[in-house]
């Protein structure tokens, strides 16, 4: 078979691919990498009803739960969004759109109170109609002492949630937040019936749970009276757990599954060269990072952090890990497509001398242990090795500890001081920053505790003046780039692959992989 390995090679797709998914690819290839919705609408494909959709996805575990509060990975996101809806969701244009809510607005000028009006006549799978109380119950599921929800961080600012009418929910915040509604897009925020058990999987979603074996598969059937008539084309969806990358590709190539996620960029050129395969990309949708806990020696030293930031060869990483896809990061968690992205911050690149310089100033600490497994981010092990090599050239010794993939997120991440991690980029700057950099954020993986930072972040939330707001975010980004604990070498296009039978795929910038994990209700099976 042809052996394209040069970065550009896969940019010349085969003829038939161009024919299949001009929209997708051309969009994917468009300069800024920002996916233009027009491009999708351009070809106006005709949805096909029916069929059995099979997804082969990574990151399932036999200890998974259906309760959205416990979602941490793409697999359960995708399953969850088949069963549950959120109050709001992201559109293909990357903007907020109503899902269960028909409208929403800030009730006060400081954006500290928000009112959501729910659509009428929406039914849960058990036939019960959706009312405000259900939303209240579901959101409170993520609040308070007892809750272990991963969504907790999103709602920390919430002081009160009330049903102000049968179909109206009013949320009060401790401080104003112009971006608050975006929080309700989060995949933890699935809405279930009042008082219900989320593990039962009863929601308003496009599909009804038939069978769930943790770590094996989930089977769902189409919800006949789904509230969004223009979606949910297939009759049933089977979401199969496939933790082995090779197995996933094999399953796709052998036609056992229609869609797989987490395609290794290295395999991309060869995979896309295969007939009957289309590549589904979401631009700069994930960031790969090596978080350092700034509360732990030696990483509590800014110079060491800088040394490491200079000691990593981002171009080399992009070349070997992403084979040229994605984009180089600047230790800045804000993606380049984000309106608030600080374009003027100079891109940091590999510089052995600067690295050595800062390393010396940090007192050349001896034990720099980087703990990685392939779960940190795909290829993180190789990345760590390359990092190790480039750092060595700057006289910095990193010893790479390879830990088992299973339980990486429970045992290593947030525990070890220097690890590999990845985030699906959040729709708004605020969401992104408060998710992992606010002092009290549950997933504050760099243990970044800085009051002024928190304060500025809070100000930005309530600041409705665009330019001022931009300025604040700019300052925050500068601070992070210079002092932050996040070493962010790469932004990655999430690469999924699908059989060319799949139609209707749209990328959702900021919504994460697989059409913001709502792929099940978006796509259809061409026959």
């Amino acid at each position: 078979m042809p052996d394209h390995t040069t970065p550009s090679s896969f940019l010349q797709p085969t003829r038939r691919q161009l024919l299949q998914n001009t929209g997708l690819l051309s969009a994917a290839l468009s300069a800024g990498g920002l996916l233009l919705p027009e491009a999708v609408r351009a070809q106006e494909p005709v949805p096909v009803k029916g069929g059995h959709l099979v997804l082969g996805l990574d990151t399932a575990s036999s200890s998974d739960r259906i309760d959205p509060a416990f979602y941490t990975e793409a697999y359960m996101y995708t399953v969850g969004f088949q069963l549950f809806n959120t109050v709001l969701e992201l559109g293909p244009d990357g903007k907020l759109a109503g899902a269960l809510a028909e409208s929403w607005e800030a009730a006060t000028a400081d954006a500290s109170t928000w009112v959501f009006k729910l659509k009428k006549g929406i039914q849960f799978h058990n036939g019960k109609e959706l009312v405000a109380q259900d939303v209240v119950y579901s959101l409170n599921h993520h609040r308070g002492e007892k809750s272990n929800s991963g969504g907790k961080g999103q709602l920390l600012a919430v002081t009160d949630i009330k049903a102000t009418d049968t179909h109206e929910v009013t949320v009060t915040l401790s401080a104003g937040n112009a971006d608050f509604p975006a929080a309700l897009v989060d995949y933890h925020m699935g809405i279930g019936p009042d008082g219900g058990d989320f593990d039962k999987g009863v929601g308003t979603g496009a599909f009804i749970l038939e069978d769930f074996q943790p770590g094996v598969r989930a089977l769902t059937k189409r919800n006949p009276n789904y509230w969004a008539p223009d979606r949910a084309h297939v009759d049933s969806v089977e979401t199969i757990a496939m933790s082995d990358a090779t197995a996933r590709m094999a399953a796709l190539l052998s036609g056992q599954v229609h869609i797989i996620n987490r395609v290794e960029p290295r395999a991309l050129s060869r995979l896309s060269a295969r007939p009957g395969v289309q590549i589904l990309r979401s631009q700069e949708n994930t960031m790969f990072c090596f978080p350092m806990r700034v509360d732990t020696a030696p990483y509590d030293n800014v110079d060491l952090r800088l040394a490491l930031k200079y000691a990593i060869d981002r171009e080399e990483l992009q070349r070997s890990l992403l084979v040229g896809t994605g984009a180089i990061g600047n230790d800045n968690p804000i993606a380049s497509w984000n309106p608030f992205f600080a374009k003027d911050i100079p891109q940091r690149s590999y510089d052995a001398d600067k690295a050595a310089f800062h390393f010396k100033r940090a007192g050349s600490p001896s034990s720099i242990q980087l703990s990685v497994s392939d779960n940190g981010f795909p290829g993180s092990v190789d990345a760590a090795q390359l990092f190790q090599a480039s750092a060595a050239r700057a006289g910095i010794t990193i010893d790479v500890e390879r830990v088992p993939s299973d339980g990486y997120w429970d045992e290593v991440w947030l525990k070890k001081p220097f690890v590999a991690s990845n985030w699906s980029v959040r729709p708004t700057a605020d969401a992104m920053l408060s998710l992992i950099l606010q002092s009290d954020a549950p997933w504050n993986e760099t243990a970044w505790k800085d009051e002024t930072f928190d304060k500025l972040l809070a100000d930005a939330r309530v600041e409705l003046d665009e330019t001022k707001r931009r300025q604040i975010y700019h300052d925050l980004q500068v601070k992070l780039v210079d002092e932050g604990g996040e070493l962010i070498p790469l932004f990655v296009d999430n690469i999924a692959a699908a059989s060319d039978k799949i139609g209707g795929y749209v990328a959702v910038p900021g919504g994460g992989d697989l059409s913001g994990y709502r792929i099940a209700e978006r796509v259809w099976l061409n026959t």
Partner: protein
Amino acid sequence: MLAAPKGGGLSLWAMLARRLALGLVLLWAVSLVIFAGTQILPGDVASAMLGQQATPAAVASIRQELGLEQPAAVRYVKWLGGAVTGDFGRSYSNRQDIAKSIAPRLKNTLLLAAMAAAIAIPLSIALGIACALTAGSWIDRTIGLVTLSAISLPEFFAGYLLIAYFSVMHLWLPSSATVSEGMSLGQRFVVMLLPCLTLVLAVVGHMMRMTRVALLNVMTSPYIETALLKGLPRSRIVWKHALPNAVSPIVNVVALNLAYLVVGVVVVEVIFVYPGMGQYLVDHVAKRDVPVVQATGLVFAAIYILLNIAADMISVIANPRLRHPR
């Protein structure tokens, strides 16, 4: 393996009883080891579960909830008591009834093992006999070399090769074996074919070689010469005179491989996405999901012990001295 049959005048039933008793004692000892082992696993369950939210208060409440503040001895007794009645408690990580979630996976594991065994055992014994019959000939050598190569391939490598050839190059067989309830046996069979094949490759060589050697050993004994002098055809000599006396080593190696097919297939489960016991255990180990680790460990040990008892008993039955005491 359990203590070899001591022969003597013991009647079959007495012997079976003794074996079973021995097995139970062994199993109990294993349970002790497993429990102790899981106790000394580094890392605290509660904080492992809570992750970021591991506030002392929360940890305490969790420990309370899991009854971890009781002394180990008490917990062991409780656990064993439950285990005996088939109740392995609930998983720490996802609160599911372990017995319930093990059941289908155990079934899958056993099914795969059974399928592999159904192919591998007759095949390897047949090959073994063929080799013994043609010992030293080119047939013998070829079979020997081929099977040797088969056991020498690392399973995961063999697995991927099979996938690459049968599933990707030609779309003959499914590459992943996600079985689920409601699948007809036929469907299961097709789906499980590749993992099954991988396992067969892994075990055939071992059993075949053992069969061959066992037979050749017997062939050197005087009563084979007697049979030769009777002018019997070689085939009859092997079937009627050699095979019955080679049963016990063969049975033992078969048992060994069966055990392997049940407890040694984690790799195959990963590659072929097969929902078996191994994957289930691996998922929970890292989460310090002690009850699950204990349960699976115990189940595996029980299977291993049972297989060995079975092997012992079969070789006892195959041995006329023990079947017909003086």
